[in-house]
């Protein structure tokens, strides 16, 4: 009978813990703040709370004596948080690089069903038809702000290991600069139309050999001159830009692949979409660039996120066992002290809270340490991957405050699980036996 009761109470604790963790996972920051405030009030204002603080102080004061064991909790949790935050920062960096490339003021026109530029074809005779549709803004000279573009994958040699990589070359129309004001040529100048001149993104310049201003590079058996470097802070940074007509000539391309346009006012997109649908000569799709680019990042970002979560969970489980181990040892080592306190009249609750506070403190330190490591090593770390256009996109890890907050929540969650069972054991120690032991 007794065993069944014990077993049931254990089950109850586990279930409550699972529910608590689930609530913790979805809890927004203000709820966490409220919980922390309530806890603080309880600790300072009630008698039980003050007893708990007093008990916790004893435990915390003895931490330096057990630094090896305490380090297991801190480092274990720091490892989980660092890996988790770094993985999520990779996904976040990729997503934000691509999302930033687009906005709601510009739209991209592609052939129906083509999904990405590489697959799209827009014939020359379609370009004037598209440019003159309703909903497209016009420049000061009255010409529509539309840039017919070509994307060409070219082989470039990487600086890192000298192997070939697919670089994205973009042939753009004269209005492309106006369409993308975020692009700033900070070194050299823009290319001249009709000339074999390249303006390269700073990411591309960093990654590939021979893209310094003034250099000559051979593409498609033609010599091109690099005349400028631009920065855009988005996925265009990985690209090489040139005049679309010149690119078309060089690669014998008779058609364009996309038309990027600036939308005229808020309803521009709807008007353009309606106009496009109304013209039977144009079997084309239009999408805002924001939507187009964020859709391209979706699959990879989700994949990285799931991977990060799975790895984080397995590591987290390992860290929980490490924390349990340490805290059980800590409780066992202090069995006499705890029993003395209990004999003096400390109730169960302050003892539980004291052990929990100690674990949470270590977890917090671990979480902060892990977040700091992830931030120091990985924030701004540049990597590249193959985009849906078959070409390399460079992006930076982005350790955002949100991710760090998430990491801290994981750390405290692990501390919660790792501290609860040892705390309960401390509270349930049979006083007389513990006093007699050792």
């Amino acid at each position, binding site marked *: 009978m007794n065993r069944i009761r014990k077993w049931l109470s254990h089950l109850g604790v586990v279930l409550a813990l699972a529910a608590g963790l689930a609530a913790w996972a979805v809890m927004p920051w203000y709820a966490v703040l409220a919980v922390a405030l309530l806890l603080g009030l309880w600790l300072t204002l009630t008698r039980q709370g003050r007893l708990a603080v007093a008990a916790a102080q004893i435990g915390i004061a003895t931490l330096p004596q057990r630094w090896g064991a305490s380090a297991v909790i801190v480092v274990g949790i720091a490892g989980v948080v660092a890996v988790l935050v770094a993985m999520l920062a990779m996904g976040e960096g990729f997503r934000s690089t691509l999302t930033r490339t687009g906005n709601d003021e510009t739209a991209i026109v592609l052939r129906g069903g083509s999904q*990405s530029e590489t697959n799209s074809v827009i014939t020359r005779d379609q370009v004037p038809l598209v440019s003159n549709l309703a909903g497209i803004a016009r420049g000061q000279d009255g010409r529509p702000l539309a840039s017919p573009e070509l994307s060409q*994958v070219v082989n470039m040699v990487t600086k890192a290991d000298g192997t070939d990589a697919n670089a994205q070359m973009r042939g753009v129309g004269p209005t492309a600069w106006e369409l993308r004001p975020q692009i700033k040529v900070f070194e050299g100048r823009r290319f001249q139309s009709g000339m074999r001149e390249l303006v390269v993104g700073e990411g591309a310049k960093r990654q590939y050999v021979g893209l310094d201003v003034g250099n000559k590079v051979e593409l498609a058996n033609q010599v091109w001159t690099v005349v400028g470097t631009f920065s855009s802070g988005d996925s265009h940074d990985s690209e090489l830009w040139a005049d679309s007509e010149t690119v078309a000539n060089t690669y014998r391309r008779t058609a364009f692949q996309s038309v990027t346009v600036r939308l005229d006012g808020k309803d521009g997109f709807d008007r353009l979409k309606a106009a496009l649908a109304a013209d039977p000569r144009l079997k084309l799709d239009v999408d805002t660039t924001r939507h187009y680019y964020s859709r391209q990042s979706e699959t990879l970002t989700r994949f990285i996120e799931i991977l990060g979560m799975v790895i984080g969970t397995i590591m987290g489980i390992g860290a929980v066992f490490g924390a349990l181990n340490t805290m059980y040892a800590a409780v066992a080592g202090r069995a006499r002290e705890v029993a003395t306190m209990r004999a003096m009249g400390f109730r169960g609750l302050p003892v539980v809270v004291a052990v929990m506070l100690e674990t949470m403190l270590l977890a917090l330190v671990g979480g902060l340490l892990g977040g700091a490591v992830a931030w120091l090593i990985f924030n701004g770390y540049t990597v590249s991957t*193959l985009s849906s256009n078959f070409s390399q996109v460079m992006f930076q890890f982005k350790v955002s405050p949100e991710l760090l907050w998430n990491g801290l929540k994981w750390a405290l969650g692990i501390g919660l699980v790792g501290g609860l069972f040892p705390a309960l054991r401390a509270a349930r120690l049979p006083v007389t036996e513990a006093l007699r032991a050792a």
Partner: protein
Amino acid sequence: MKYLHLIWAALFRSKTRTLLTLLSVVAAFLLFGMLDSVRVAFNSSANVDGYDRLITTSKLSITQSLPYSLTSQIETVPGVAKAAYATWFGGIYQDQRNFFPNFAIGPGYIEMYPEYVLPPDQLEAFKSTRTGAIVGEALAKQYGWKLGDTIPLQATIFPTKGSNDWTFKLVGIFKVADKKRQGEERTLMFNWKYFDEANDYIKGEVHWFVIDLVDANQATRVARAIDALSENSDHETKTDTEQAFNQAFFKQFADIGLIVTAIMSAVFFTLLLLTGNTMAQAVRERIPELAVLKTIGFSNRSVLLLVLFEAVLLIVIGGAIGLGIAAVLMPAVSSASGGVVQLGTVATPTWLLGLGLMVAIGIVVGTLPALRAMRLNIVDALAGR
């Protein structure tokens, strides 16, 4: 060996601690097993050992097409046994997310891949059916396709008669015997002739050639000779061994090796600390017992080895369980994902590397406590000083 029961008893002296440490080790090696298998799978998707083929693509870029007339020129190069060609189609089945490679293949292409096992009658049917297509078994299973089914694909690049709707008749299902390469079963191939006639854009153009060699040792020379064919033309080529081509392609996605190494260093560093702490505790608690062992005649060396083996045993047990779970888990993940994720079980190199790591970690964490145990002064230890 005769001390095994002694080590065993020492290991389970404190059951909670050993169990908890063991579970941490299990988690670490479970992660190691899974990540390293991903790495192996990723690298071996580039690994076509034993098949000496060359791949010729456009020098400009992989997306640039080449004239199919190059085939006969390539076949005249000394050292080339056969050449076949293919064109990337890039069609979508139902939804964009259902990505799998699909391409049009010329005559003789499938025969170049003897590792793709296709029944002879199905091969005949493929050759004689204009709109015929063959798929790998994993793909057929995933979408429930059977021989004779009509498979609709949405073209993303090549419309046919102004529409993006293409349909193919499934006439063959091939298998890939090599477990590690089963990811290649997620492929659909169809007749290039049909593609060439029916698409609205390109005629007589292909994206890559596959070349069978007479002698594998001649690969470099033959590759150069093939590239020389089109030198200074408007369709220069780049020829590589299939292995090098695949490696270069996969490397562009991400440096999986680096990511796996980084994560596992973090994990194993933590594990070192954790098990090291456990072993230190275990020895500290047992000082009087160890002193007794020494008193009754155990040599310093035996005591050292006892503690060292205890550490190694702890980690090997946990690690083996972890890798075992990974081995069971991954095929389950693969089948649950319906073949999208193709992870074989834990491969032999991973097991070996894992075992090596277990022993190494065991020795590292066991050394300090073992030395401490060895250097115990019997009198002090017994007196509890």
